[in-house]
């Protein structure tokens, strides 16, 4: 067993563990912290896949910004403490969805099993950020500008939605 496989197994175990804790914790804030663990281990997997820039973006955006935003969402709303036994909408529905997800994963396993494309990118880790920057500002400049418009519109919309409405008219 090489070191690479060992690191992959550790990170994958942490990711699955975080997701399972997220599904089973009783308090909302614990679920969110477990998911931060999953996000961080996925960032480690990005480093393994020679995507250092995406890994840093993952830590900043997911483990940082989105988690803090969700924590604000949790703190600004009231969560019942007796919600523990009402975690699932109904146990019958939970079982049905669980069986469906196991089936889904089984089908994906069978489909993925034989996949091997044979090719490996040799130079993605060499000046990774520079490669991304060059590509983003030459070949993908129009999608880049469009996605900034999407962000602007979405955040203005979010502010308008969350604003109190007493000052209209």
């Amino acid at each position, binding site marked *: 067993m090489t070191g690479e496989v060992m690191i992959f197994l550790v990170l994958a175990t942490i990711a699955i563990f975080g997701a399972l804790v997220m599904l089973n914790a009783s308090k909302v804030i614990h679920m969110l912290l477990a998911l931060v663990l999953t*996000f961080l281990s996925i960032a480690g997997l*990005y480093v393994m896949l020679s995507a250092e820039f995406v890994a840093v973006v993952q830590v900043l955006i997911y483990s940082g910004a989105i988690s803090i935003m969700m924590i604000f969402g949790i703190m600004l709303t009231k969560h019942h403490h007796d919600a523990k036994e009402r975690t699932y*909408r109904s146990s019958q529905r939970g079982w049905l969805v669980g069986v469906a997800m196991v089936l889904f994963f089984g089908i994906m396993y069978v489909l993925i099993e034989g996949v091997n494309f044979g090719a490996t990118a040799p130079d993605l880790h060499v000046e990774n950020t520079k490669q991304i920057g060059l590509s983003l500002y030459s070949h993908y400049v129009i999608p880049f500008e469009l996605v900034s418009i999407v962000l602007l519109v979405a955040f203005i919309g979010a502010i308008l939605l969350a604003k109190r409405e007493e000052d209209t008219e």
Partner: protein
Amino acid sequence: MTVHAFLLLAAALFALGLFGALTKRNTVIVLICIELMLNAVNLNLVAFSKFGVNPAITGQIFSLFSITVAAAEAAVGLAILIALYRNKATVQVEDMNEMKG
């Protein structure tokens, strides 16, 4: 390492996220389960950018775009949650049935 280990991990994370999104009753948890599913998809994109048929930097660029759209989605989803909480004082998804026929 081969590509199918990463694909299997991403499929497992996606299945767990979909399970949470379909069974949890708390709106914040449903939102973060959707984020988990988007993360699994990003993992696939980055894996294909290293091991795919035509390995190139494009997969990483695409995953950056999808992270951006996910951030916008989380912001709008949370704003809708706050607005609904102000009107109905609940965060449980089955209480949000205003548009039911």
